[in-house]
């Protein structure tokens, strides 16, 4: 029995949930916060849980169907504009179901978590309405069987992202303004990518005459094998050229949605939204849609690779994708070093990890990228929700602290300077420390998330990150003429090192050491609705590697290859997803040549990356941040030569101490990291380029349009027409004197003219 008929429910249920929360939920919460929140939150959550169950049944149905894709048509969307025919149909294949699993699984947990997190918020029901709407659009995005439906979801999740980043736009004290600015920034940065998406779709339609995935890919393959040229604008182009353009436009779209260089700037600001949003949208699901897009279009990308067309003769699209991903991974990893905000660290970390995935799909390791996408969704959602738990705890602790404080001194000071809106920032890691005793559940799950993110064996991140690195290192020798693999391998290894370091820094500053503010003493553990999802995700982060467990040795792989197809625990995901990634079959038939991803552990790579990660973690925890910062006002020890105070601790035994610490760390690395973070990223990229170059240019143009062209030109014509009409009607109004005699005179005049005309006609003859 298959359950594909249930697929439309995936769309219907969250939409119903959205409607329920929008109309009934808001009212219920207003009437009675306690029961209203229960109804609103649990309705939304249970609908998503049902969706997850449906996804699981779809998965098993697909397996029973030998992993063949099923199209579930709902209705014809565009069927009347000439040859432009777009159905509204859901494509259920292993790729979309994998994405669905992430969206609904992680989504359901985050919904439950949000019931606890958003407790007491005025916009409780509105929040869940947005979340359900987001799930709705995300499901459209991943299940659509054509690019246009994908784009509907793509825009829809952008809208929800905008709504949810600016969720607290009505807060007082300028916070609300900052929130709405952040929302606007995210929206506008995404529009840049979306414009490229639209162009890509137009070109796709011009080239292939359709936007449905399978027909596009089929005709692309056919045109490629028959070396058919593409007529565009009256000129014939090679297919490789056209597809390079399309794929570059897809890449630009992906850099917007998935926060890659140069459009990543919106993601750190997006942390202004409530933490469940950061976990769901800005870590686990929406930001991965760029990767999904590239994986979905793998045939186009592989044809580009095979056609060996270089953009401007410099770089192929695939290499560009990989390079952008790898650079972003390292770049954002370096920036994360200097963040104080507990969520900003995770935000840059997300940018960095997305870079890993983009690099993977750029190198042709689609399954590895997807694998990392899944594990990352799990452990990054875990980390974000952990950080939300921390922030929640810090806020509550602060309230208790203020109450307590006022209780002692309240009588003396009539002014009551604590009104809950002082300078205390619950997200600043400098005010934390020693939280492990206060929040044991959060602490242990956070540690698991950190180990998974850092890529420590045997947590989930190890397997997925390692598969990407293994792919790079394998092809480094297998395809020696490709310069991209060593570059990506080096960048990603460095980025992995950075990842472990900033995560070590974070857990050290948040959980270990002595409390750096009085608030910590009052921090409570979060309630079960928040802890339960953490625990479930922690289990996922620990065991996630199992979904695509590689063979441990080449021999084992070879042995199982003979009995391929028999179910065993190895490479379960790869076997499933391969059916959706057509490039595998095309590689077998020799149409394209997708780079090979080794399916057994590359011992060298694994050992190197694990050791680097361990070193970085230990370095952060036990050396650099061993004692500092002691006070909330202390600067980052990384910025003040960490090893000076305790030179014997690590490097003292080395004769290179002076050289390393004085020369490298103090003179080179600190300024370098500071320079990247403050000067290049913030001052140059954020402030100068975005504020001055882009914003000011835009403002000037907009100013010209708004204050000169519009009022003088456009309005001039419009109001001019109005004025002329006014004058004319004023003139005509004189005729309307109300004196009926004049009207009669007019009639008589007409009569005389008529008669005279007729008589004159007679005279003429």
């Amino acid at each position, binding site marked *: 029995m298959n359950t594909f008929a249930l697929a439309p429910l995936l769309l219907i249920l969250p939409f119903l949930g959205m409607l329920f929360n929008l109309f009934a939920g808001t009212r219920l919460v207003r009437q009675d916060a306690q029961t209203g929140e229960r109804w609103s939150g649990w309705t939304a959550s249970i609908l998503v849980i049902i969706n997850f169950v449906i996804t699981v049944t779809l998965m098993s149905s697909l397996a029973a169907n030998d992993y063949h894709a099923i199209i579930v048509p709902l209705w014809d969307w565009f069927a009347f504009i000439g040859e432009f025919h777009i159905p509204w149909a859901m494509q259920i294949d292993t790729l979309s179901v994998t994405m669905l699993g992430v969206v609904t699984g992680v989504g359901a947990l985050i919904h439950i978590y949000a019931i606890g997190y958003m407790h007491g918020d005025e916009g409780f029901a509105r929040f869940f309405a947005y979340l359900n709407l987001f799930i709705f659009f995300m499901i459209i995005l991943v299940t659509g069987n054509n690019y246009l439906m994908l784009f509907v979801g793509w825009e829809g999740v952008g809208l929800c992202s905008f709504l949810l980043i600016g969720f607290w736009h009505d807060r007082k004290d300028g916070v609300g303004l900052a929130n709405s600015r952040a929302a606007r920034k995210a929206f506008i940065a995404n529009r840049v990518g979306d414009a490229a998406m639209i162009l890509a779709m137009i070109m796709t339609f011009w080239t292939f005459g359709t936007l449905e995935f399978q027909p596009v890919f089929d005709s692309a393959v056919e045109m490629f094998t028959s070396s058919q040229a593409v007529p565009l604008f009256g000129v014939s182009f090679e297919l490789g050229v056209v597809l390079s353009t399309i794929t570059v436009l897809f890449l630009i779209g992906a850099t917007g949605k998935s926060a890659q260089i140069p459009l990543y700037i919106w993601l750190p600001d997006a942390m202004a939204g409530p933490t469940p949003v950061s976990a769901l949208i800005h870590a686990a699901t929406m930001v991965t849609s760029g990767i999904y897009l590239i994986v979905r279009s793998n045939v186009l990308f592989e044809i580009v690779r095979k056609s060996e067309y270089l953009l401007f003769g410099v770089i192929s699209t695939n290499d560009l994708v990989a390079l952008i991903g790898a650079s972003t991974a390292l770049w954002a990893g370096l920036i994360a070093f200097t963040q104080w905000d507990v969520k900003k660290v995770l935000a840059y970390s997300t940018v960095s990890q997305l870079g890993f995935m983009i690099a993977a799909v750029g190198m042709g390791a689609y399954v590895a990228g997807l694998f990392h996408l899944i594990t990352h969704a799990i452990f990054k959602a875990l980390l974000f929700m952990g950080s939300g738990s921390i922030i929640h705890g810090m806020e509550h602790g602060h309230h208790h602290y203020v109450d307590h404080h006022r209780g002692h001194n309240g009588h003396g000071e009539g002014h009551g300077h604590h009104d809950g809106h002082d300078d205390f920032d619950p997200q600043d890691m400098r005010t934390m420390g020693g939280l492990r005793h206060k929040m044991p559940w959060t602490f242990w799950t956070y540690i698991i998330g950190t180990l998974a993110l850092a890529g420590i064996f045997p947590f989930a991140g190890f397997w997925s990150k390692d598969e990407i690195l293994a792919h790079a290192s394998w092809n480094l020798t297998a395809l020696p003429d490709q310069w991209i693999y060593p570059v990506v391998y080096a960048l990603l290894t460095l980025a992995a090192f950075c990842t472990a370091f900033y995560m070590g820094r974070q857990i050290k500053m948040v959980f270990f050491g002595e409390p750096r503010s009085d608030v910590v003493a009052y921090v409570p553990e979060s309630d079960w609705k928040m802890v339960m999802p953490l625990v479930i995700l922690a289990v996922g982060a620990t065991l996630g590697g199992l979904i695509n467990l590689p063979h441990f040795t080449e021999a084992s792989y070879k042995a199982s290859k003979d009995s391929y197809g028999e179910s065993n625990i190895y490479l379960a995901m790869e076997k499933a997803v391969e059916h959706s990634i057509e490039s595998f079959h095309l590689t077998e038939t020799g149409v394209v040549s997708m780079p090979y991803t080794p399916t057994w552990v590359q011992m060298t790579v694994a050992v190197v990356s694990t050791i680097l990660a361990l070193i970085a973690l230990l370095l952060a925890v036990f050396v650099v941040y061993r004692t500092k910062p002691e006070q909330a006002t202390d600067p980052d020890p990384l910025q003040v030569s960490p090893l000076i105070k305790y030179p014997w601790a690590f490097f003292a035994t080395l004769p290179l101490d002076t050289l390393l610490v004085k020369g490298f760390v103090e003179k080179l690395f600190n300024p370098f990291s500071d320079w990247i973070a403050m000067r290049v990223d913030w001052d140059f990229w954020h402030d100068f380029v975005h504020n001055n170059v882009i914003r000011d240019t835009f403002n000037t143009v907009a100013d010209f349009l708004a204050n000169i062209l519009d009022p003088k030109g456009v309005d001039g014509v419009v109001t001019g027409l109005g004025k002329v009409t006014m004058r004319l009607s004023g003139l005509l*109004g004189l*005729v*309307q*004197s*109300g*004196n*009926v*005699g004049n*009207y*009669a*005179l007019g009639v*008589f005049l007409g*009569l005389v003219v008529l008669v005279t005309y007729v008589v004159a006609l007679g005279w003429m003859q």
Partner: protein
Amino acid sequence: MVVTVEWYVLLGAVLFTIGALGVLLRRNAIVIFMSVELMLNAVNLVFVAFAYHLGDINGQVLVFFVMTVSAAEVAVGLAIIVAIFQSKKSIDISELNTLKG
């Protein structure tokens, strides 16, 4: 000299013009109304003359209808004038300027 249809047309034109002048120039709404009747009569006269001239009976039938309609028109029109007089206490047409735009 024989009386031809042109004579009647000429007479009709003159009567019509006088009626028109009455409509255009007089103040009294009732006189204006009478002028309208004069104009109708002028046209009727021409109709009958042409009916005679062409030997066509339809002209006379048309005159009969004009008379019927003008009878109805007079009845309603005079009632309107009475109503106007009741509200305005005047039937001076130059005071009826509520149509002023």
